[in-house]
């Protein structure tokens, strides 16, 4: 007689239950309960997130999950955004697309971040996934408008095409023409990254005109201001809109058309673009301002008082991205006007200038932290900071989830006491118990890392530059931060000891990046030998590591856990320290 247990539901019921579990983490947890749950779960998983495309191979994914409809892949390490990862490093999507083409013909969503996507890959996508609905290429590169034309021509069910921050080779301006006249399903289009010759405006107009469900449209810089009114009038249902260049000679007809067009967009909640913005045309959006929840002015060179005046008209703002032209005074206005503010990003207008060009200091951030109780995500570039300010901010905002402070001079001390900023950042991690992401800057000793290791228990991502004095700092982080997934370090005096002492920790993390530090080749080799489930990749453009002494520091080090073993698509300047490394080269 079969033992009846509480878990002997029919599979269909379990499957039905699992269908309510959307989060990958929860699904992963369910899948390890028992073998039958593993089996049922894997057959009904539809969505998969691979945070590091080299952590697993496409074959393995397909073998385990036979019917995926949505995939998200990330490639290069985060510091690739700042040009620290040379071209050719890797992150190619083609192997994934090739294998999925056969295995997942019903794939609906592809989201890629920091991957190399070629026209060949895009053509294969277009050919293989007739049901494709969502294609997001976030910070990708390697493709041209030809690839986009293939997608446009073939993907009849496409609802979302988002090329956010990608580098696209502009070959032809007419790829938009490849959307057939019968195509009407577009909901979201982000082409803000495209260069000059990429977009045929008439094709864009026709496309917008025939897609009644279009809710999100982010234009590229080259779309002139006088064309926007026409475009908006064809899509008054837009929720999110990104302008092109926001500069033109002031003409009353253009002005009034624009104002009317914006006024008719009753659902508009998010605005961005505003390249080269001139103050004269700002008032055309005033009718929308009261509804705005998200405003991205980080490409707009407008200054106070125009900038502050605009901000003061947006009481519903939840997300604000702006240049430091807003200055402390503008941030104070923001703090008093926008009580729903959750996310603030302030970018530098002149990052390399020796003297400050604007009056933006720590005071602005203190004001916002004080006035906006819902603030939880901050990215702030400025030139001075004090421990006192950081402590105040931490006390004002114990709900921070993301705190990234970038002092333009990377080793600057507390400007009032000339002390390191250890205590200030320590207060941040101590008060903000839910902090998931932290970026440090300024003069920092090992002490701040001691605070981080002690308090930052939910921290998942830490970015460090020009900080610390010894390996102890790294040891504090690796041994104390229980939730750490990604650690990226540049230009810090960290060497072998902490790394080797915490080698096991590295298997619990997605990745570790260290560049311009003091980790020796010998330590890398040792890690490679002892930790088979880690890929230890040494990057050095001066030549193969074996040409140097074991004690020489490596230029760049990228360590990530993987069940797929070392990769084979590395460029000549990347070496993997696996068990065979030493013997291979001898």
């Amino acid at each position, binding site marked *: 007689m079969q033992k009846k247990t509480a878990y002997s539901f029919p599979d269909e019921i379990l499957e039905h239950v699992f269908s309510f579990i959307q989060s990958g983490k929860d699904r992963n947890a369910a899948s390890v309960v028992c073998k039958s749950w593993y089996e049922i779960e894997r057959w009904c998983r539809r969505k998969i997130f691979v945070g590091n495309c080299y952590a697993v191979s496409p074959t393995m994914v397909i073998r385990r999950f036979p019917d995926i409809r949505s995939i998200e892949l990330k490639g290069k390490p985060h*510091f690739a*955004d*700042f*040009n*620290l990862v*040379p*071209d*050719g490093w890797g992150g190619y999507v083609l192997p994934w697309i090739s294998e999925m083409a056969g295995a997942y013909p019903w794939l609906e969503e592809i989201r890629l971040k920091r991957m190399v996507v070629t026209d060949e890959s895009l053509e294969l996508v277009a050919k293989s996934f007739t049901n494709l609905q969502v294609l997001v290429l976030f*910070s990708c590169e390697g493709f*041209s408008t030809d690839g986009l034309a293939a997608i446009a021509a073939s993907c009849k069910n496409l609802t979302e095409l988002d090329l956010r*921050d990608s*580098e696209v*080779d502009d*070959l*032809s301006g007419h790829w938009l023409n490849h959307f057939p006249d019968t195509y009407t399903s577009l909901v979201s289009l982000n082409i803000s*990254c495209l*260069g*000059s*010759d990429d977009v045929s405006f008439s094709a864009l107009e026709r496309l917008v005109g025939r897609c009644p469900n279009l809710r999100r449209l982010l234009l590229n*810089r*080259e779309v002139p201001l006088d064309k926007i009114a026409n475009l908006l009038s064809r899509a008054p249902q837009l929720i999110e809109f990104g302008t092109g260049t926001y500069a033109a000679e002031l003409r009353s007809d253009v002005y009034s058309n624009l104002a009317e067009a914006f006024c008719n967009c009753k659902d508009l909640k998010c605005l961005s673009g505003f*390249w*080269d913005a001139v103050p004269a045309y700002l008032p055309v959006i005033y009718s929308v301002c009261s509804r705005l929840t998200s405003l991205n002015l*980080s*490409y707009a*060179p407008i200054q106070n008082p125009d900038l502050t005046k605009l901000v003061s008209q947006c009481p519903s703002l939840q997300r604000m991205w702006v240049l430091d032209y807003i200055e402390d005074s503008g941030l104070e206005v923001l703090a008093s006007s926008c009580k729903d503010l959750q996310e603030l990003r302030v*970018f*530098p*207008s*002149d*990052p*390399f*200038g*020796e*003297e400050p060009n604007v009056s933006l200091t720590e005071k602005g951030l203190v004001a916002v932290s004080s006035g906006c109780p819902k603030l939880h995500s901050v990215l702030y*570039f400025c*030139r001075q900071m004090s421990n006192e300010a950081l402590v105040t901010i931490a006390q004002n905002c114990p709900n921070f989830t993301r705190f990234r402070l*970038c002092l*333009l*001079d*990377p*080793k*600057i001390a507390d400007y009032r006491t000339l002390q390191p900023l250890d205590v200030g950042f320590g207060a941040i991690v101590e008060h903000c118990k839910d902090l998931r992401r932290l*970026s440090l800057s300024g*003069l920092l000793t090992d002490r701040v890392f001691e605070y981080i290791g002690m308090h930052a228990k939910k921290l998942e991502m830490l*970015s460090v*530059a*020009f900080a610390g004095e010894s390996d102890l700092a790294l040891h504090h982080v690796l041994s104390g931060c229980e939730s750490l997934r990604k650690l990226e370090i*540049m*230009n810090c005096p960290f060497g072998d000891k902490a790394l080797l002492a915490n080698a096991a920790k590295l298997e619990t993390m997605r990745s570790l990046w260290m*560049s*311009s530090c003091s980790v020796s080749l010998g330590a890398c080799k040792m890690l490679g030998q002892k930790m088979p489930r880690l890929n230890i990749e040494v990057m050095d*453009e*001066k*030549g193969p590591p074996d040409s140097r002494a074991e004690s020489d520091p490596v*230029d*760049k080090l990228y360590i990530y856990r993987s069940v797929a073993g070392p990769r084979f698509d590395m*460029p*000549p*300047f990347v070496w993997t320290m696996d068990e065979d490394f030493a013997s291979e080269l001898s």
Partner: protein
Amino acid sequence: MEGELVLLGGGGGGGGGGSAGVSTNESAVLSKVEVVVSEACSYPAESELELGLGLSLGGATGKTKPATATSSWGECGRILTAKDFPSVTKNGGPSVSVSGTKRAAESVSHEGGSPTGVSGSSQVVGWPPIRAYRMNSLVNQAKSQRADEGDSGIGEKDKPKDALKKKLNYNGNKISSTTTVNEKGHLGFVKVNMDGIPIGRKVDLNAHSCYQSLAQALEDMFLRSTNSVGNSSLLVFYSFSALCGDVNAIKPPLFFIGAEKEQLTKAPKLLDGSSEFGDWMLVGDVPWRMFVSSVRRLRIMRTSEANGLAPRFHDSNERQRSKPI
């Protein structure tokens, strides 16, 4: 085994101009271009303007670090005559921001304390942590603001007129002599490809203020990691966008000489529908500012392959295959 990285000033319709080797650093700083930063290269009294700039490689310079992080831009190369190919090893070049190298970063971080202000930080790769896309947008902004302020960055005063008269004649386009260049597109980081090396690189032009430092950076990038440069000189070409006037009226395709890479063999279409292979410009001809605002790509070739290419703009059928290194 020495090669040279030579930036030739030989554009225009005339002859290729001489190439010049440059020995760095001991002698007075000479440059024919104006630099933006205050520690400017000084100008020679007897500038040979049709000569280019070049830097010799030297073999033993593998780990040169500048003595100070605050680069004295004054340590630029010296222009010599065309016959002069010195084999002086360079040292103490400015610490430049180059993708992939850490020399500058090291020198900055090992300075006692931080450099004053952020003057040193523009030379550190990856700092401040701003995406290239955003950085380029800022650059465009800053440039047009400076242009608006009437800053004569071109340095016309400092150059004899004949240099300016070297037209970048392309389909009849002439360079405007004003600085109000309508820049669009992604400036700042430009792609650099060297023939024979499959992997291209990117260089941040904003981290340089003169051709010498750019040459230095390119040298660091390409010529250190390959050890078979041989004795031939290398030329740096650039492709450019329309420099003036109505950008919308004149669509400037990139022009390529037959190259290995797939994307480079596609002939871009001109506005009138014809397509044409054209030439690249030789770097070093125009004032630095104008160059930076118009360049889109760089390409490094050996002189042996490049001979005969430079002077002609419309020898569109002249394809040169470069030999692999």
